[in-house]
């Protein structure tokens, strides 16, 4: 495989964690994504390997939320880690949440997973120009939001 599995594992895990907000679930989905990726070989030798891996991961996250039944509220909070994480979110995190989901995803790809614009374009199906423009617009919105927060 020409992509570094260990490095990609971390990146796909980060992506799944961003999608699900649950570390254990994110890891399960990451492993499933790798197993699915290696279960076939049409993309192994040719094609956009990285884009395919991300697409598998994204579809697994979507499938998970489709399958998941709405949970009944109980007195006990089941995922305390997630709640704690929510509480510890910085201003930047709050600001990020106000952005459209696609823009958040683009920022994750570009700055957390350090993918190139070309790779992001392959994963999202957008043109390189559109990716570049949307990232720029997301950053501008973010800066604006942070400015507003600071001014309050």
């Amino acid at each position, binding site marked *: 495989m020409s992509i570094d599995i260990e490095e990609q*594992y*971390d990146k796909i*895990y980060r992506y799944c964690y*961003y999608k699900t907000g649950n*570390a254990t679930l994110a*890891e399960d989905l*990451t492993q499933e994504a790798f197993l699915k990726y290696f279960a076939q070989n049409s993309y192994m030798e040719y094609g956009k390997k990285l884009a395919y891996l991300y697409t598998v991961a994204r579809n697994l996250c979507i499938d998970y939320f489709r399958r998941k039944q709405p949970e009944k509220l109980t007195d006990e909070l089941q995922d305390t880690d997630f709640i704690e994480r929510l509480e510890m979110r910085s201003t930047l*995190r709050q600001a990020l949440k106000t952005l459209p989901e696609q823009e958040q995803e683009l920022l994750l790809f570009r*700055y957390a997973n350090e993918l190139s614009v070309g790779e992001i374009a392959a994963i999202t199906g957008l043109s390189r120009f559109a990716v570049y423009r949307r990232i720029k617009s997301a*950053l501008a919105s973010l800066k604006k939001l942070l400015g507003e927060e600071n001014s309050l």
Partner: protein
Amino acid sequence: MNKKMKKALRETFEAPPPMDKQRFLKTLQHPGSTYLKFLLNQFFYIRKRVWAFSVVIIFIGWAVTFGSPVFIDWKAEAGKIWAVSAVLPFLGLMMTAEIYRSEFYRMSELEMSFRFNLPQIIMARIAILGGGNFVILTALLIFISRVSPFNLLQVIIYLMVPYLITCGVCLLILNRVRLGEGMYFCAAAACFTCMVNIITGSRVQLLYSSSTLGYWLLLFALGGVLTAIQLRKLIKQTEERTWNLLLTE
């Protein structure tokens, strides 16, 4: 966008460390590169000058064979074989030089860290270069046998003897002498074989007569056996030689 902002964004998306990563990656069965793909990759590591020289040899063979009038006399046709076979030692030299390139440039340690070990890489290169040389020799045989008064077996033997002897002698030298100096000895051996061809060229009628065919067959067999033995020795010695080089340099 400043570095501070980039770092903050990276940290924002940071996930808790994965708990099961090492175990999963250890047990993950993923297919590696196929041998065919490995062979094709090695093809691109062979220098372009080798293929360029091969094309030049084919061109020389074509020019010598078809560039002059056909069947003027027996001596002229024998001279064609002599001219082509005089160039072939250099093809042998190019091949051996290419096989030893990784050791010559001290790149063995990089190749040793690769999934395929050095003997496998050298074998792959020998296979590729041998395949290339086979194509060249076949092309030359086709050219010459179309105009030559000799039968195919004779043409094969006359062309292959200088080539096989050069390959065998070059490999013998490289297996015994230090690599740096070894290449000069090889070049000298190739030049010597070529010179022998040129010197004996004046006696071409005697050289390619039926009475000497037995000697040619003997030389052909000797060249073939010498090349095969030295190739086997090269593969066996590769690992040991590499370590010696790494420890003494």
